[in-house]
């Protein structure tokens, strides 16, 4: 071990390797509840060459590597593995190029997501994916987890914006996949293999992203409902009416209270559920869609529909919504967040199931989520020190996952499998498709060097 650390220090410099307990404990976790594991050391390479060299040295010692950005993941993807090296990529933090003629941006993996969005906005362009942690999450982490956000319904997720990426393979080789072409069918779409691979196939060090023209106008609406089902029905009716707003966010009563407690922006506390709806694009279309959504919400039992006064107010509402998960932590010591996702036509059923399971197991569940894309976040408010309750949490989660799969859904819409959902993954695959996925991993990483034990064993 000493030998390994000395070699790593020669590559990145002594001050870029952490090895004391006081330095390592803060790297023992990411944004996921409960999961914790100490690392042997944390290394901060400065560029792709250092990353490759670090991989080479770790490989020669047979030491596993866990890649980390800002550590905000929600499935334990960057939780260290015992006696492993954590490679933290925050020093690869340069935006390399913004190409206004091809509408692309190129950046190193450690750039903060919000900085990508801001840089694009300066050029009058738009990078749509906006995960809740975008103020601090890294773009490399977003690509590795294929992060979603509030705009998935209209604009898709991170994958839809990746045109190219550079990855360091377990062998230490550096590969580039992709280009600035809108169309490209040369060979397998290798970049897509690495998107959402959760650090198990390669270390993503650089990305080339697609940008869009910035929408000329946007409008935000806030609708209140006296039942969760009415809100879900509204969402289904909006989609059925062929309206695709950029955001259809749902918050239940518990969540609304917590968010209001934190942000104090005047959310309706008496409502059972609220929908935060946003439409963007050409001003005439925006006006028309806003009107349509208001009518549909009223028809489906909305007790009130408010229009945000301006873009700033709309942004404040969206920012408050992004804090929902953390705000729920006000209620109980431990906050377990799930992201079961179902086809939109099945939303009402799923919402009802979550309520029913929560009551049956006597658990406090706050539900919010991206209702427009069927991605719900039932969040169980509990205490990890209460063994009996944790047992019920486990059972409730299991039932919710089973039901989501039954409805043709998925156990995770945007957080990834990591450690948190690993036990549930086989249920979603057939035997042969699960085996194929594992054999793919073995082909690229025969020694199980990169993020072992994540996604599957």
């Amino acid at each position, binding site marked *: 071990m000493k030998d390994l650390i000395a070699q790593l220090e020669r590559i990145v410099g002594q001050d870029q390797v*952490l090895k*004391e*307990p*006081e*330095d*390592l*404990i*803060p*790297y*023992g*976790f*990411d*944004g996921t*509840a409960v999961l914790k594991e*100490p*690392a*042997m050391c944390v290394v*901060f390479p400065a560029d792709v060459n250092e990353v490759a060299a670090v991989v080479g040295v770790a490989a020669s010692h047979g030491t596993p590597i866990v890649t980390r950005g*800002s*550590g*905000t993941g929600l499935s334990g993807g960057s939780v260290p593995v015992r006696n492993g090296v954590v490679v933290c990529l*925050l*020093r690869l933090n340069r935006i390399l190029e913004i190409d206004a003629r091809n509408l692309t941006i190129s950046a190193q993996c450690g750039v*903060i997501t919000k900085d990508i969005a801001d840089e694009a906005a300066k050029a009058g362009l738009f990078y749509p994916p906006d995960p809740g*942690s975008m*103020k*601090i*999450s890294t773009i490399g982490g977003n690509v590795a987890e294929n992060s979603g956000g509030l705009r998935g319904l209209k604009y898709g997720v991170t994958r839809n914006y990746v045109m190219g990426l550079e990855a360091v393979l377990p062998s230490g080789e550096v590969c580039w996949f992709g280009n600035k072409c809108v169309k490209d069918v040369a060979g397998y779409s290798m970049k897509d293999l690495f998107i959402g691979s959760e650090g198990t196939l390669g270390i993503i060090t650089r990305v080339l992203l697609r940008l869009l023209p910035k929408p000329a106008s946007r409008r935000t609406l806030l609708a209140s409902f006296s039942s969760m089902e009415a809100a879900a029905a509204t969402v289904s009716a909006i989609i059925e009416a062929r309206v695709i707003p950029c955001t259809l966010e749902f918050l239940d009563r518990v969540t609304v209270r*917590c*968010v209001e*407690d*934190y942000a104090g922006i005047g959310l309706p506390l008496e409502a059972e559920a609220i929908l935060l709806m946003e439409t963007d694009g050409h001003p005439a279309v925006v006006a028309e869609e806003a009107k349509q959504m208001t009518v549909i919400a009223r028809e489906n039992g909305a007790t009130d529909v408010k229009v945000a006064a301006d873009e700033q107010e709309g942004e404040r509402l969206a920012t408050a919504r992004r*804090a*929902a*998960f*953390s*705000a729920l*932590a*006000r209620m109980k*010591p*431990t*906050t377990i967040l799930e992201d079961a996702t179902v086809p939109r036509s099945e939303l009402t059923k799923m919402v009802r199931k979550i309520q029913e399971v929560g009551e049956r197991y006597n658990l406090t569940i706050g539900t919010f989520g991206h209702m427009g894309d069927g991605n719900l976040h039932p969040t169980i408010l509990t*205490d*990890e*020190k209460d063994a009996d309750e944790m047992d019920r949490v486990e059972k409730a989660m299991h039932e919710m996952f089973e039901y989501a799969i039954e409805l043709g859904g998925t156990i995770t819409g945007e957080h990834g499998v990591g450690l948190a959902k690993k036990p549930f993954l086989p249920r979603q695959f057939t035997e042969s498709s699960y085996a194929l996925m594992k054999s793919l991993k073995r082909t690229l990483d025969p020694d199980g060097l990169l993020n072992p034990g994540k996604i599957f064993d």
Partner: protein
Amino acid sequence: MTKPVPQARRTENYLQDLDYSVLQQCMHCGMCLPTCPTYMETGKEKNSPRGRIALMRAIADGELSVSRAFGDEMYYCLGCLACVTACPADVDYARLFEMARAETERQDVLNRPSRNLIRRLTLRGIFTRPRLLRAVGRLLYVYQAAGLEGLVRRSGLLRLLPKRLRELEPLTPRVCRTFSDGLIGEVEKPVERRYRVGLLTGCVQDLTFSDVNRDTVDVLLANGCEVITPRCQACCGSLHGHNGEWELAKVLARRNLDAFDLDGLDAVITNAAGCGSHLKHYDRLLAGDERYAQRARTWSNKVRDISEWLVEIGIRRPQVAATPLAVTYHEACHLCHGQGITRQPRDLLKAIPGLELRELKESTWCCGSAGIYNITQPAMSEKLRDRKVDHLRATEATVVASANPGCNIQISAGLVASKGRAMAVHHPVSLLAEAYRRETG
């Protein structure tokens, strides 16, 4: 990697005695990271709020002992509380951080001769003895006023000082000729009385900004407040509370409670953000004190920052012709993060005819003063100071308004060091007082 402390040897400590749910409240989501000045400079989790809480939790769990590295980290934290503003989960970081520092002191892991000397002289020495503090202030004034300071600087004598002290020497604040007691009567009555308030004169404020205290009284009088200013006040204990000296903080709090006749006052006014943030928590500090708990609760209910109080009672707009003045506002951490006061100082400034308020980029980012942080952590402090000065210069304002003596000293020093166009630094209340003075000519 971490050595668990055997159960039998485990000593009861502040972090282990603490209600565990306070630590659990942090669900390490990372929302605090982009607002933490130390984390954003170093990029290391240990230097972040959630990282520090993880260390505290490791101690509470018996996975880590209170080590020198732990203690150092607790003092590397600015205590700016930006994380408290950012935290959606409502983690009580202020409490955790004070406990962690208190435990660090209790276990004495940072025992170093120079540190011990500084702490003995300051926290346990002059800041607990108001008369001694003022005597030291008097000496410093004579030294500065007689021109000895310049003489000593030119003579090269400073080179005889240890390097650390030599670097600090330029930070020595200008001491006022007359302290608050000489400028302010014990009771001052307005023309028409609407309220009666008590005034806290502070310690650093009293020595180096006694004019701000005078301005505060003038503004209060102009707004119909009778002002009671007890003589020779003690330090409020905020330095002690934030630096792990809880018992001393309690002693000082009791002294202040004794100095004011609370029942006869509508409010107790402070104009120093760092003090105010601590003063409002006397109730918590003395909750276990049978004799003082009730008084401390009343006290906490009545303490108001000057801008908070003025907005609450309605600011009388000065009746003077508009004089153009471009002002930018730096938010003291313990005003915006510690007390949640952001709108009121701006309202106060906007009440001044002709004043143009230019918003400052990163206005709530710590300037690096942070109590005695600029003395204990000069390198990080200077980085933050320069970052602040760059933003201040970018506004092209002529005046910086800021409501905390520590910030004002730090920013003034930063402006001088950056050698650009002169920018004056004033407490917002001084700008308002100046406008009232123009009313009478």
